[in-house]
């Protein structure tokens, strides 16, 4: 038996791999080199929810795709569960990134646990994502009791998971991260030009669906454009979705068509390039568990205008520091945020620098360090120190002694 075979095997499973998932697995594989083997399990190559391009190889890890060329939703949950179990039962620890609303995720967790495998939940859910009822949450907590630990996005996700009973089980932050070096490299490879301040545009990236509040965003942008007059920055909308027709009609009514650019779906490299040459990313969703596009914006040092409900807010967006935080339902508030970022090159440059300084917090190395701390007994002092720094930056300050 080879040396690599004798190493413990750490499994990661997601429904479908996007570039973000590959970033995290590769970071974990680098982090665990020589101490563990990494098995990356992708259930299907596509899904009805996400139009990601099929993933390629995952550096440093053994990648297995269980149902090639099939959509996740097309495969029966029992078939998915059985295939996942067969692929992962030899692991000593399995990180499950499928939502626990999927029956196969819960079944997999319980069966692996009964087989003696340590199971870690990966989640970006937070309490304020939707209305909650104690009865339902109590049932959920019982079902999730098979997980040994959790790897979550940030402060609100940690509070929610602890609410669900992870009180004595470890809960570490670092789940929602991307490879910031990859994003910068992609941006540079596509286009290295740096437009001047006046030419830079606000950018939205995402699906055109109701929860993203694009209608409200366009109304706020129209209000901003009226106030800013000839100096108004343009707005680029990257993505597509069911609301596009309505949005185009609204843009016409608001007389802002000449300021808007509709690119449709772009690949990851093109998005990175657009972000690198933008004025600010705008993401004012009513409900957003995290918003990984904010990590991408931070990776290229772009200021961010986000709504308070966006999960990445505490970690990556500082109001008036790295961008602006707006009330999600307030047209005037969002317009004020657009004006704050777009008004002065001096303050925009300060925000740009502050946003770039948060890059370390957006990086998938933080995911790898958290995974290391959860599975290995011999993390390096650097890993421990980095995770402590990351935690201190992400979690809200404690008030100290009780008053």
């Amino acid at each position, binding site marked *: 038996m080879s040396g690599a075979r004798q190493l413990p095997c750490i499994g990661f499973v997601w429904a479908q791999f996007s570039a973000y998932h590959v970033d995290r697995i590769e970071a974990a594989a680098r982090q665990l080199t020589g101490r563990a083997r990494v098995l990356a399990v992708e259930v299907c190559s596509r899904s009805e929810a996400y139009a990601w391009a099929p993933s390629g190889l995952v550096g440093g890890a053994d990648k297995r795709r269980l149902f090639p060329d099939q959509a996740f939703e097309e495969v029966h949950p029992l078939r998915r569960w059985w295939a996942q179990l067969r692929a992962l039962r030899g692991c000593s620890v399995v990180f499950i990134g499928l939502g626990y609303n999927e029956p196969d995720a819960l079944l997999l967790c319980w069966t692996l646990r009964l087989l003696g495998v340590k199971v870690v939940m990966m989640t970006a859910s937070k309490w304020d994502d939707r209305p909650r009822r104690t009865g339902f949450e109590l049932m959920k907590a019982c079902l999730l009791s098979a997980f040994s630990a959790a790897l979550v996005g940030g402060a609100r996700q940690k*509070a929610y998971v602890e609410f669900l009973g992870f009180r004595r089980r470890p809960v570490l932050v670092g789940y929602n991260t991307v490879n910031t070096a990859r994003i910068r490299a992609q941006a540079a490879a596509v286009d290295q030009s740096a437009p001047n301040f006046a030419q830079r545009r606000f950018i939205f990236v995402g699906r055109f669906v109701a929860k993203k509040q694009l209608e409200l965003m366009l109304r706020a942008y129209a209000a901003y454009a009226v106030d800013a007059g000839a100096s108004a920055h343009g707005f680029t909308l990257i993505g597509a979705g069911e609301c596009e027709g309505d949005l185009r009609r609204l843009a016409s009514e608001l007389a802002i068509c000449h300021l808007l650019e509709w690119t449709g779906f772009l690949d990851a490299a093109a998005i990175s390039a657009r972000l690198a040459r933008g004025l600010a990313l705008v993401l004012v969703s009513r409900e957003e568990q995290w918003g990984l596009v904010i990590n991408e914006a931070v990776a290229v040092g772009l200021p961010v205008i986000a709504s*308070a409900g966006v999960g990445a807010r505490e970690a990556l967006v500082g109001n008036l520091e790295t961008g602006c935080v707006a009330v999600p*339902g*307030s047209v005037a*508030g969002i317009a004020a945020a657009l004006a704050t970022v777009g008004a002065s090159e001096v303050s925009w440059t300060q925000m740009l620098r502050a946003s770039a300084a948060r890059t370390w917090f957006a990086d998938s190395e933080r995911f790898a360090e958290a995974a290391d701390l959860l599975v290995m007994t011999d993390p390096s002092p650097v890993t421990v120190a980095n995770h402590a720094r990351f935690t201190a930056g992400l979690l*809200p300050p404690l008030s100290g002694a009780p008053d």
Partner: protein
Amino acid sequence: MSHRSLPRIGLLWAQFASYHIDRAEAVGRRFAGGWDVTAVEVATASRTYQWQPSGALDAARKVTLFPGQVYDDIPWHRRLWAQWSALRGCRIVFVGIGYDQPDILCLGWLLRLTGHRVVMLTDSKFDDRPRWVLREAGKALLLRCFHAAIVAGRRQRDFVWMLGFGGRRAILPGMDTISVARVRSLAQRELERPLPFAEREFVFVGRFVPKKNVLRMIEAYARYAGQAGEAAHGLRLVGAGPLEPAMRELVDRLGIAERVHFSGFLPDAEVPRVLAGALALVLVSTEEQWGLVINEAVALGVPVITSFPVGAGDALVRSGENGFLVEAGAVDGIAAAMTQAASSEALWQRLSAASAARGWLADADRFADAVEVLVDAPGAASAAERIGRFEQVLDEAA
């Protein structure tokens, strides 16, 4: 019709501060002639708050169950008996004491089982402290005695919804409100002769305790003052508490003693006069169910710099419109908000006007609206319309 023959509304709080008086008066005025409003104060003092003993009410009947005594020193079974005796004649009782007190849950169930309508008043929210679903599920069962809840704002509404309210157990906003007219009348002189922009200071009002994040606020102020130089506005700290020595030491160490002024604890009547001359109220707590001093600032048209954990921010502060929302842990963010608020008189005027425009949401009449709807009084339809407007504002932040 004598008081005795009118149907009775009961309002219960542990100890009356001026804002409890505001709410009781607002309810009393709203129901004048049709209902007897009885405001029950359990004790004159408590170990938590240094409020002065409350005076008489004009529009409602006031009963103090244990005059001259401290709330925390009275055994819970004695409080329960006294509360029950005072309130059992009411048709509907609004309970404004925390459900962590055993007498309150007993009282709620006693009233419920004897055919009274019982309404919970609360400003608790999910993010106030670490929560555990099992405890919350137990709490939800215990709170089944309440027919409805009047809550402070959006996060409080979501929290009590989780605890089983909603639907037939109505949830209405309006609990954390004050009399805007009272606050404005206390500061009438300052409002008539407003301080020039250049002389205005940032003002903090509250206890000097860790959760108020006062040390980080002072650090942020020092950063702002360092950038602003000679033009920096001062910082006035109103209050007292165990952190005062550490705050004074920090102020000295940061070399800002000339610009930071400690006013000590001020009586309720004095606070609006200080606030009226403020450049902005700064309240960047790490944990704050509501923060009623924000209602006072809004009543006086003062911009507000506050942190996301502060509950009042959902309804009363719109970042960039009438103040700024910041992360409680972000010294640079708090400093940037101070810089922005002080950046120009024109901007400050806009922030100030937008703050004053939110006064309607801060007023105790919103509490009376909620009571009116729950009592189903003749004016309930227009009260419900006003509550709808209040909820629209809360939904903006959802």
